């Protein structure tokens, strides 16, 4: 069974149910039930028309759930009048689904969970495993998210479905509504990408798949920029971690292990986006990643251009994290003293400020200060891999000349 194919059908199955008159929250539950059944049944008996199967099963699940709910008796009567399952309409509402699941009224964690389930076609169990929380907790997070977006409003574009009786209230809630803000969707996909790999789902690969699907549906330079950024980072993934799980810094990575096909694709997408002259933060970040990916050796990296891109990025985002990364680039382009000067202008409490200071002091030849700062940075590190890496750096300097 091709699970990715199955997942790719989920958003269109969901939008078919909503078009037939199911409200979003109930339709989404029904599609999830159908997905779980497909995962159970298909390995032994995969239907020829996978999408038709999913629509039929999901619609049946929806009717069952609606019938079971006595308090929703009136809706049941209405549902009975809906057309029988048939061929799916050609209209593609998947884009609206992206916007709904990334709605600004949701917290980032809720938007991520809802996107992965309703657009990504992952099961609650898979999402819970990826985020290391119990399945019951993730189920609640998702149903709260659905309640939140159900209150969002109605789509004038979709309007009232056929079969509604006179005098009946319009089904206003939980329909796909305003086109939404692309930036909110991109932020959600960016978060999913950065979650990386845990549980049995490769979230980075899933984020790339969802961003590709989005890019196929909307012509927007920042969507292309984010896709390029993901591809360029993903291309280096194998080289970024040693077999023991420790971090390998960019300068020490085996560039032969970089995925050149992904790099070429990422650079191509980025160049076409940049040519449109509507720069945004994801394109600028991708440009920096592209300059790294393009250098045959670490020494040949075009740090001067990277600093220029950081200047653009600072202009676009004014983020202190960007300024910190810029200080590293300045240290490479103009020497460690210049990097330390750039660093001195930043708030020392910024995450990784001490680690950057340690690195620049080492490059400047002040190894005692560097060793002390590496140890201090290790103490403040927000994750295990960085802590181990920084501790090793301190140890390397502290034991120099001893072996």
């Amino acid at each position, binding site marked *: 069974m091709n699970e990715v194919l199955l997942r790719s059908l989920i958003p269109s199955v969901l939008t078919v149910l909503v078009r037939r008159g199911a409200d979003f929250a109930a339709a989404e539950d029904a599609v999830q039930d159908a997905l779980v059944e497909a995962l159970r049944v298909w390995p032994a008996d995969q239907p020829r028309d996978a999408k038709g199967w999913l629509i039929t099963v999901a619609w049946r699940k929806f009717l069952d759930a609606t019938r079971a709910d006595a308090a929703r008796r009136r809706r049941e009567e209405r549902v009975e009048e809906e057309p029988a399952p048939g061929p799916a309409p050609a209209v593609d509402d998947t884009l609206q689904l992206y916007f709904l699941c990334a709605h600004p009224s949701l917290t980032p964690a*809720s938007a991520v969970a809802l996107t992965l389930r309703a657009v990504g076609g992952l099961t609650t169990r898979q999402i819970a495993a990826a985020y*290391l*929380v*119990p399945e019951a907790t993730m189920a*609640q997070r998702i149903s709260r998210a659905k309640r939140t977006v159900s209150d969002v409003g109605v789509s004038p574009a979709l309007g009232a479905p056929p079969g509604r009786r006179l005098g009946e209230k319009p089904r206003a809630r939980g329909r796909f509504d305003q086109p939404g803000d692309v930036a909110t969707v991109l932020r959600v996909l960016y978060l999913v990408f950065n979650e990386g790999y845990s549980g049995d789902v490769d979230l980075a690969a899933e984020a790339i798949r969802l961003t590709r699907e989005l890019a196929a549906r909307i012509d927007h330079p920042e969507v292309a920029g984010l896709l390029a950024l993901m591809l360029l980072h*993903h291309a280096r993934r194998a080289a970024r971690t040693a077999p023991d799980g420790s971090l390998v810094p960019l300068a020490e990575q085996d560039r032969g292990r970089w995925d050149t096909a992904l790099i070429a694709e990422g650079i191509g997408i980025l160049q076409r986006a940049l040519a449109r002259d509507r720069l945004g933060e994801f394109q600028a970040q991708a440009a920096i990643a592209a300059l790294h990916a393009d250098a045959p050796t670490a020494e040949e990296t075009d740090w001067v251009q990277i600093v220029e891109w950081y200047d653009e990025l600072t202009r676009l985002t004014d983020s202190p994290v960007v300024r910190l990364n810029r200080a590293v680039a300045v240290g490479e382009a103009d020497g460690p003293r210049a990097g330390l000067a750039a660093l001195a202008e930043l708030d020392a409490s910024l995450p990784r400020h001490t680690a950057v200071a340690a690195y620049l002091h080492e490059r400047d030849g002040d190894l005692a200060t560097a060793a002390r700062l590496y140890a201090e940075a290790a103490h403040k590190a927000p994750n*295990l891999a960085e802590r181990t890496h920084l501790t090793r750096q301190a140890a390397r300097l502290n034991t120099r000349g001893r072996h």
Partner: protein
Amino acid sequence: MAKYLLLKHYRGAPDPVNNVPMDQWSPEEISAHMQYMNDFAARLEKTGEFVDGKALAPEGEWVRYDGEGRPPVTDGPFAETKDLIAGWMIIDVDSHERAVELAGELSAAPGKDGKPIHEWLELRPFLTEKPSTTECPHR
């Protein structure tokens, strides 16, 4: 989201405000306390913020390796050990502020006379495994 550990101590935390040991409470007060803790966990599950919660027995021992082919050495429990963990709860929340807010609520569990204990809970952020991919662009 970020995960935090809420640690409850038998010993080692500063004294709570309502500092009457549980064996001096009425059975109803103990039930009310337990109910509060259970309700708190159930509520966090509903908000999608609950990860885990467990209690630990107060008695434990120290164990260490004692060399090749020898059984591990055990020692204790030591009555004088300053710090004694009673249990934990792990939460997964949007912000540090939210973690502090929840720890504050848990600390308000009722004790003697049904009044909040105001006990001190230790709040510890988890280290994640790895930095996120785009977090360190020069990586």
